[in-house]
């Protein structure tokens, strides 16, 4: 197919990054693999000894694993819905961001569900979820939601890559080994850029982008209902659906900003990911942050003001500095106040500061998920009358931490690998007529 001059220039720029692994990526891959290996060792411990090696016990039955699950799957939902919107609304500045967004969605969608499997006492019986499925269980809804979503996310990412695969296949700028050419040939599905192919592809892309938006709303609401459907203070809340949807988009947007920053530095992409792009993403963060802050405020205000007995007990734990008070404060400052302030003031609205704010935001959101899961489980309706400290307070063990960091390492590792396979900006989007 025809590759324009502009696209050739872009390919030339990216050639060193996708042609081979340089020493720096090898160091990274090595370090990340070490982290993952430690995680695997922890996993073996957990399989051999059982879940006693975790900090979870009869009161706090869900811990870091569920926190990480909501965290990663939320990031994925966020990446997907943002990519869908940017694509559908033909946002002019989307070109260098789309690829990062769909990769974020795809990779975290692979990692999130792993944590569910880690949390399940009998993952040897995982297939029971299908053969003995029970429609009225929110977990079943989530199984359906996540698998549907995963297919959608993969399709979405793939459709957005087909043109690029054809370009890599046909380009003579790239010096690729034959197996990679063959791979691209297979992946490009014989796309030649003919009129009818173009039209079909455009329609499919629009369609899947359109589907992704309501799908993300549905699937992240389903996720929230795992909590919302229980009779537990701090969970049994009607606001949880939209709250989770918004939190997911918010954390997804922040991760996209972080990845933009990393690639801009690592690949020297200042001409592609300009200050403008960061500012625009910053505006998105600002509006989402305001919405998220509003939800947070109304959720806790109503619980605190109404001060029903059980609600108050959870609130007390969240507000008390001796329990979760500091974390509650940090989570709200990091994930609401700092991003809004950084983006609101022109002086602070620099790529570095926005990315730093995004990093803090993502951390704050992780803490927030912890504060949703653990304090509620530590506050059952009947008093815990036990003397074993691990039955009263949850504290994650090294096994859970090792596996959590392994999850993070896998995320980065997959990103490095994917960034070798495809260019981090969508080459085919840079046509002559646009800009």
């Amino acid at each position, binding site marked *: 197919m025809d590759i324009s001059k502009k696209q050739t220039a872009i390919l030339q720029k990216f050639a060193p990054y996708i042609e081979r692994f340089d020493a720096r990526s090898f160091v990274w891959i090595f370090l990340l693999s070490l982290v993952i290996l430690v995680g695997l060792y922890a996993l073996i411990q957990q*399989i*051999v*000894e*059982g*879940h*006693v090696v*975790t900090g*979870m*016990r*009869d*009161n706090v*039955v*869900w811990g870091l694993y569920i926190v990480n699950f909501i965290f990663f799957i939320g990031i994925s939902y966020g990446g997907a819905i943002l990519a869908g919107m940017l694509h559908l609304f033909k946002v002019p500045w989307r070109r260098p961001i789309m690829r990062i967004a769909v990769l974020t969605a795809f990779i975290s969608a692979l990692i999130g569900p792993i944590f569910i499997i880690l*949390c*399940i*006492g*009998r*993952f040897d*019986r*995982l297939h*029971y*979820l299908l053969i*003995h*499925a*029970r429609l*009225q*269980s*929110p*977990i*079943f809804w989530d*199984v359906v939601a996540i698998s549907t979503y995963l297919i959608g996310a993969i399709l979405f990412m793939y459709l957005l890559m087909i043109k690029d695969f054809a370009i890599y296949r046909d380009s003579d700028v790239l010096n690729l080994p034959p197996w990679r050419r063959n791979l691209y040939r297979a992946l490009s599905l014989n796309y030649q850029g003919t009129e009818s192919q173009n039209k079909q592809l455009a329609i499919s892309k629009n369609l899947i982008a359109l589907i992704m938006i309501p799908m993300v709303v549905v699937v992240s609401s389903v996720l929230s209902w*795992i909590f919302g*459907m*229980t*009779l*537990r203070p701090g969970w049994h809340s009607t606001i949880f659906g939209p709250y989770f949807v918004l939190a997911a988009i918010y954390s997804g947007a922040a991760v996209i900003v972080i990845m933009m920053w990393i690639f801009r530095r690592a690949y020297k992409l200042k001409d592609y990911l300009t200050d403008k792009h960061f500012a625009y993403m910053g505006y998105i963060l600002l509006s989402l942050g305001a919405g998220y802050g509003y939800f947070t405020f109304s959720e806790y205000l109503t619980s605190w003001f109404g001060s029903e007995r059980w609600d108050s007990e959870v609130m007390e734990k969240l507000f008390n500095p001796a329990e979760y008070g500091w974390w509650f404060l940090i989570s709200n400052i990091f994930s609401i106040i700092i991003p809004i302030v950084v983006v609101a003031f022109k002086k602070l609205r620099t790529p570095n500061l926005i990315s730093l704010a995004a990093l803090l935001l993502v951390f704050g959101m992780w803490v927030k998920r912890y504060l949703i899961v653990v304090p509620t*489980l530590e506050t*059952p*309706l*009947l*008093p*815990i*009358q*036990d*003397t*074993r400290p691990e039955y009263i307070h949850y504290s994650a063990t090294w096994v859970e931490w090792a596996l959590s960091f392994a999850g993070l390492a896998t995320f980065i590792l997959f990103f490095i690998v994917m960034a070798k396979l495809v260019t981090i900006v969508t080459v085919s989007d840079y046509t002559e007529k646009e800009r």
Partner: protein
Amino acid sequence: MSELSENGRRDFLKKGALGVSLAAWGQLIFSCSSGEGGEAAAEASDTVKLLTPDGELVEVDKKHLKHIHKVEKISQQEARAGIPGKKFVMVIDLARCNNARKCISACQAMHHLPSEKEWVTVKLMKDSKDGAPYWFPKTCFHCDNPPCVKVCPVNATYKRQDGLVLIDSERCIGCKFCMTACPYSTRTFNWGEELDIPADTETHPHNPETSVPSRPGTVEKCDFCPDMVRMGKLPDCVTACPNGVFYFGDQNEDVVTNGSETVRFSQLIKDRSGYRYMEDLGTEPRVWYLPPRDRIFPVERGYESLPDEVKERYKNVGLDG
């Protein structure tokens, strides 16, 4: 009343026995764990006489006796359907409980549970700062609108027509969703791969009605002892309680008994203002409570003689002063 009680009781037993004769009452089967009987028997305070298979009469320390389930083999279908025509119900008389904790140990012995695992717990409750403290024994409530059952993704925990909520440990995937859904902290989880249970229970045919043997990575809880009921007996916690706190019976027949006294369920609830715990949650428990009015023990009685470790648990209520 007493005449009615006698009749009611006989009626309950007859129907509850399901074909097993009244002799079943004495049928608790003991086996002597061999070998180590010798030295302990010398200082035994609590002994029983037993007839060995070769006709010899021996006296053994109760400590060396071990309950063995005598279960008729129940099919999975039967275990899921429930005992036809029954609607089991429990009434717990808070006025009689002095935290003797015999229900706990009996239930643990019957289900081969480690000492920390309590399917029936006795909480020390105080509903408000200036309210009166009271002992609160709690089994699974076998709710009629059970949140735990609603959330189970694989139908491992289920509601039967006789009112029981049971768990099939061969089906449970250990997602623990039911544990977060149960508002009464009823369910326990087998956290370790190595369970602290006697190896011989492994050979016991697994059945949701006996909840034995335990399976690692799955959820367990009080099962209302339907295996005992099928033999025409009362659940172990009921018979073990020295104060007759637990009444167990069939709501269809409107009869409950604590082993020594048999009464009309509806009358008991009416006379003693029975209530269900946290009725406002809409879970419709099958366990009723009789308020701790005219108590036969001062509440401290259940506290003073406790080992320190157990005393420590009740610190949040603070009977110490």
